[in-house]
């Protein structure tokens, strides 16, 4: 129960970070490849999501047959 709360919170935080309305009016600064800085923010956010999802699935997404064998 405590772990599912942890994972839910982590996914929720990432979702809220994708709603970055606080930075919408910031001046646009171009970074590498001439892309605006916030594009890299979203690339990073997706990588972070992939990492969190990887650990979540490693712990919580098991083969039902494996679970059955363990029981």
């Amino acid at each position, binding site marked *: 129960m405590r772990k599912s709360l942890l994972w839910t919170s982590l996914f929720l935080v990432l979702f809220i970070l994708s709603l970055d309305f606080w930075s919408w009016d910031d001046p*646009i600064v171009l970074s590498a490849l*001439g892309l605006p800085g916030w*594009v890299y923010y979203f690339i990073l956010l*997706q990588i972070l*999501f992939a990492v969190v999802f990887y650990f979540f*699935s490693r712990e919580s997404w098991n083969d039902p047959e494996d679970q059955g064998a363990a029981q």
Partner: protein
Amino acid sequence: MTTLVIIALYLLVTLGIGLYAYRKSEDNPDDFFLAGRQVGGIVLFFTLVATNFSAFFFLGFAGAGYRIGYSYYGMMGFGTALVGISFYFIGHKVWVLGKAKGYITPPELIGDIQQSDALKVVYLAVMVIFTLPYLALQPIGAGILLSQLTDGLIPQFAGSVILSVFIVIYVFLGGMRSVALTDLIQGIIMFVLMFVAVAVVGNALGGIGEANRQVMELKPGIFSREGADGSFTPRVWFSYMILWVMAVPMFPQMFMRFFIPASTTSLRTSARLYPLVTAFLFICPIMIGVMGHLAFPDLVGREADTILPRMLSAYAPEWLAATIMVGALAAFMSTMDSQLLALSSMLTRDIYQSFFNRDVSIEQQVWIGKILVVFLSLIGLAIAWKPPSTIAAIATQAFTGLSLLFPATVAALYWRRTSAASCVASIVVGEVLLVLLYLQIIPSGFTLGFLPIVPLTIICSLVIWAGSTMARSKVSKAG
């Protein structure tokens, strides 16, 4: 000539895969519609990607990059990355139930776990109504692309016919096994060629960084968060962030893929890789669209969707441009073949078997499925010949229309107290409200600035909760 040879080569490869799949196939519905539920991780990943990313990914993303700018990447990228969560909550459960009880179609599963034919029929109706027009749009788009690629040598409708014939042959021969294997090839082609396209165009414009800086001077709105055309407000952005996670698994061709993994590992691997694909692949067509302002600054409306082929014609050698655009053809075909198979399986199992012939043999089911593949593609071509205006209208509402199945699906899979009647009511109420909103009988102010998906999902969920609670209290009183 070079272009024709490349296209012919590609089509022959898809036929070869169809023949290979045919030799491996067995004469039963599990094998024809679901590749025997034995699809491994890598093939599953590519078939999910190729099916989900239609030609809209090639042409529409570049067009949106041109019209809206980089903001489109943030919305589509992260929104689609979240779909991995649906693969776990919907996909895994569906796979477990499908394996245990032999389900083949989504309505069959939902109707059976709720023990309701009414729910099955309503679920089926929504899936067919929103998928058929989308299926019909594929040969239209593919025909236009083939005609453009060959400089009009192949007329648009002839292009639609040629591609439909190839698709029908390989689906007819090998069913899901053909579709999944061609998706593997088509997916790899899409991936590689999209990166090549960005590199070629960027290089021709003096480097991607330099090209972006020039566009920034010309049209700074392209780099803004609201988008050059003001597409995004915070409420619209929020709406999109929750739309894809609900819409993508409700497309029948995607839902059916949850039945086909050989193991949990296959689906889990695909879900893990999905956000990485969106992070790195989605930016490519959008970059090309943005850089398009340097070469074609005055495109308006639908013309923007032709920016990718225009840029390739302008900056890539003929053979490379043709090869890259074969990637767009692959995207069209990989979506259309999956839609054909999904619709054919649902009409075979959920209509013919359920209501006309319960004793149909497994061999007959395969044959009926195959005949329906041909029949449905003919319908697609008939529509492509003279498309009614309603087709495009229904297709544009497909994402929201299918998303409205999501609350009922989650409730049916996870909430023991769910009543079938409340799921039916939720779907009917949601779809009716969507139509009324589309026809502007309900004023747009009803959505409070969000996309319709936000208020309608809340309403659908409330209908399920209230309906199920009332049904339960009635049962308690009766007891």
